Every structure is written in structure tokens, then in C-alpha cells.
């Protein structure tokens, strides 16, 4: 969505136009649901949280007519992050539990790979290890960029908007995060 289009939709929403809000919902709902699902324990919670994100976004845009929203993508992801954080805060859960069905994941990898069965088994093991290792990265920024890049499949530009850093900084951060992840992986071996 172009910046002008986004600003026009925001202006319409501020006039109470719900159809304009539907457009914003359609553009972001899948991405936000995925973002939340990866960070919450189950699909029901993820659906509730997605609804909460979009209601909070409406409230923010509609109730702050003088505030200039320069970066809508960043704003939505910020709200989503806050919703996830408050979910864990409310439930007093210290560790995030990722919602990926490992068995199904392995099954799909087995189907897709063209390598030999032995190599395939190795890969399955490594993927599940990797999955655990990502969740254990202590540096919040590193974990965030890895998740945004590889799990949420966002471009450097989109990530830069979300974490409020330049594209160059995102590249550097991602490079360091991969290096750290590789070290952790090797230590795990």
C-alpha cells in the first residue's frame, strides 16, 4: 500500500469510515494473526488477540485526530507486541510457548525435500533444534529480527519500520543475530 493511500485511509477512518477500516484490516489481518500465533500458545488466544489489536488500532486512529501516523505498519506491530506482552503479563507466564506443530512441520519437510531419506532425518532433527534455540536467544533484538525475517517473512524495509531502525541497521542486526544463533547451535551440538 502506498503512503498516500495509507494516509487517505487514515483520514477517512478519522471521519468514522468503517469501510476504509476494512481495507486496513484486509491488508494486515493475515500478517498480524501469524505474528501473534507464533507468540501465543494457541489459535483461540491468537484470534482473540488479533481482534484486540484491530480494536485498539481503531481507537488510536479515531480518537487521536491530530496525531500524524507516519508509519502505520510500525504502529500495528507495536500494538500487536503490546497485546502479546499483556497476555503474558496477565497470565504471569515467564516463557513464551511457540505454537508450531513440530510433527506436521517435519512431515512437510519430508515431503518437500528431494534429498535422501537419511539426510532428511538429519534435517528434521536440526530444524526442531533450531526452533528451540531461537526461542532461547536472550538478546531481545536478535530474536525479534530473526522472527520478523524468517517466521513473519517480512522485508528489511518492513522490519525497519516495525523496530524503528534504518534498513542498514536491520541488515547489521540480522547478520549478528544469525552469527549468534550459529554459535548457540554449535554449543548445543
Amino acid at each position, binding site marked *: *500500500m*502506498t503512503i*498516500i*493511500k495509507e*494516509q*487517505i*485511509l487514515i*483520514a*477517512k477512518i478519522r*471521519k*468514522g*469510515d*468503517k469501510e*476504509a*477500516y*476494512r481495507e486496513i*484490516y*484486509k491488508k494486515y*489481518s*493475515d500478517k498480524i*494473526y*501469524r505474528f501473534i*500465533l*507464533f507468540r501465543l500458545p494457541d489459535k483461540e488466544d491468537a*484470534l482473540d488477540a*488479533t*481482534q484486540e489489536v*484491530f*480494536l485498539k488500532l*481503531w*481507537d488510536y486512529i*479515531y480518537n487521536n485526530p*491530530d496525531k*500524524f501516523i*507516519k508509519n502505520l505498519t510500525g504502529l500495528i506491530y507495536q500494538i500487536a507486541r503490546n497485546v502479546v506482552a499483556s497476555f503474558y503479563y496477565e497470565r504471569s507466564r515467564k516463557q513464551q510457548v511457540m*505454537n*508450531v*506443530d513440530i510433527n*506436521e*512441520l517435519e512431515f*512437510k*519437510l519430508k515431503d518437500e525435500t528431494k534429498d535422501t531419506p537419511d539426510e532428511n532425518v538429519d*534435517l528434521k532433527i*536440526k*530444524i526442531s533444534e*533450531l*526452533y528451540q534455540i*531461537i526461542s532461547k536467544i536472550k538478546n531481545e533484538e536478535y530474536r525479534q529480527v*530473526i522472527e520478523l*525475517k*524468517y*517466521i*513473519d*517473512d517480512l522485508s528489511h524495509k518492513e522490519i525497519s519500520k516495525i523496530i524503528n531502525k534504518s534498513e542498514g541497521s536491520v541488515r547489521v542486526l540480522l547478520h549478528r543475530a*544469525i*552469527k549468534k*544463533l*550459529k554459535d548457540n*547451535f*554449535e554449543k548445543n551440538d
Partner: protein
Amino acid sequence: MTEKQLIKNLNNLGSSFREQAVLKKEQSKGLENLIISEIENRTPDSQQGVPVWLKLADMVVPESLVLKPVASFSLAMGLFLILSFATINASADALPGNPLYNIKIGAEKARYVMAFSDEQRAKMSMEIAKMRAKEFRTLINRIDSDQTNSNQLTAQQVSVQIKSELVNIKDKLVKIKDNQEDAKKTVAFAKEVDQTLNDIEQEIEQGESTLELENNVKDVLAEADDISWVVLALLVEKHESGEVDLSADDLDLKLEQEIDKVSTGAEEMALENKEIDEQELLQVKETVAEAEELLEQEILSEAVAKVKEAKDFLKEAAVPVSQNEQVGDPEEVVEGATEEADKEEVILPKATPTKEIIIKEDKPEEWLLDSERQEERVQEFEVEIVN
């Protein structure tokens, strides 16, 4: 595991997750309807009506930059015009810091340049000054919630712009007064200026200003006050010359307001600034009393002149004594050093082969107000130079 292999695995992990984490169509639609109905419950009166230009702009602005080839030149031109119109309209409420603000300023400048007469330009300046005053009010009302202090700095810049536009309006008003042959038009224009000043003063005074912005607010209001007097003098002049028949009651009322302003200013100054000489304040009060007397006798032009005298005196008295002492060392004044001569730092010709005299002056010195004292000190200094 190599870095390349690690990235490949990360991509595999991500794509597998994304395949699982899909919001089904019916799920998505259900969630969408749930959200919209919740919004309707929360804000039942929210539909204020979307302006036509916004609807038009929404229709023509593409979702993404990957456009189908535009069929004809006219369509492209139409698109351009609607977009320009929409963007300029959208920028109308933009504040400094918003990218649309530059468009707003650009549009204002373009309109100012395209104005063909002093009157048109003055009207543009009035519009701009009113707009800046509105922005100023919005910015200062946001200062409390602003941790970066940026709103305060921007508000300061905006106040400087308001003052500059007011100076512009004053220049144009004087020009029009001197050049406009049609007295009725001049008077109508002066009244318009007066109304603008009232609007600006209201905007500025309604905002919750901070201590840091106090001087900026004072500067703007002082400039508005100056113009207000110019308007009054012009109206009285045209009324007394018989060129335009104005209501004497209206003029009396305006003059009374001006007198009130000076009286209130003097009282406030007495409360705020203990360094002000009591005698000076007494003199202001005496001049105000004279103006009131002249007003009672319906000698309006002289009453206006007295108001001006009191205002000027008040303005000069407002410069703290300590500041005067700092900049106005009487030892350094040479003959002919008047206020007009020393607007900025002035290096005077050397009075003696070894002595260069520098006078720094940005505010009128207190002792310069008293002409007798001034002469005495100049004479003292001349004696010193000769010696």
C-alpha cells in the same frame, strides 16, 4: 552447520510455520465483521461524513505503485489535478513535523507570490498569521505530554513566524494607507486587519503557554498591539478628515480598549518587574489619564497620540535597569550616538588615534529616555575625549 545451511533451515522453519498459520477465509471474514460491529457499538455516532475530495482521492490513488499503463494523457492530467487538490486539502490541518506541512507552506508561498497587490498580499499574510496562531495553540497544548520537548521548540519557531507575518501586515497597512486613494477601501481593510488581530490574540491567549514560551507570547502580543494602534490611528484620521463616516461610538470604544490595555500593561509591569522606576510608571499613568481626558473631550486624534506616547514609554520602561547598565555605559557614548544610529553593533570612527569605541545596543538605554541626562553625559564624554 554453515551459515548458509542455517539460513536455509530458518527459511524452511518459517515457510512451514506460515503454511500452518493461515487465517481461513471464513475465519477472517467472521473476525472482520466482529471487529466492525464492536467498533459500531463503541462509536455509534462516528460517521461524520467523508469529504468528497477524500472519496475522489481514494478512488484514484492506486493501492500499489505497480500501475496498469495509463490509457490517455487527459486521464493522467485529471489524476494529477485531483491528487494535487486532495494533497493540499489534506495538508490543511498538518502541523510542523508532518510531511504534508511542507506542502501546506509551499501552497501558502505560491499563493502569496501570485497575489498581485499589496492588499492581496496583506490578506494572505493575515491568513497565514491566523493559521500559524492556530498551530501555535495546538502545539503548546501538547507540550505536557511531550517528553522530547520538540513541541516547545517548534512552538517557539512558529511564534517567530507569526511575529514576522504581523510585521508584514503592518508594513502593508502603512503602504495601503499612504497609497490607497479610496478611503472606504482603506478603512474596510483596516477593519479586516483589526478582526484578524483579535482572532490571533484569542488563539494565542487560549493556549496553555509555558514559562519558556512566555517571552514568545509577549513578543507576538506586543506586535499585535502595535498594529492595533496603527489601525486605530488610521480610523481616527479618516473619520476626522471626513473622508469616511465612522461611528463615533465605535471609535470611542476602541480607544477606550487601547487605553485599558496600556493601563493594565502598566499595572502588570509594576507587579512583575520590581526594577522599574516608580516615577516612570507614574508618568505612564499620567499620560493615560491625559488620553482619557482628551477622549472625554472628543479630541480623538490627540487622545490617540497620547495612547501611543504612553505605549512607547511603557515599552521603553520595560527594559530592566540592570540590562541598561550592562549595555549602556555612559562613558562610551559619543556625540550623535542615537537609538537609530545603533541598531546593531556599530563601530564608530575613532575619536582619538588610540581609542576605538564600540557601542552595543539592542534595547534603548534607560538613561537615553531622559534627554537632559543624555546631553549631560554626552558633554561629559566629549570633555573626556578632548582630554
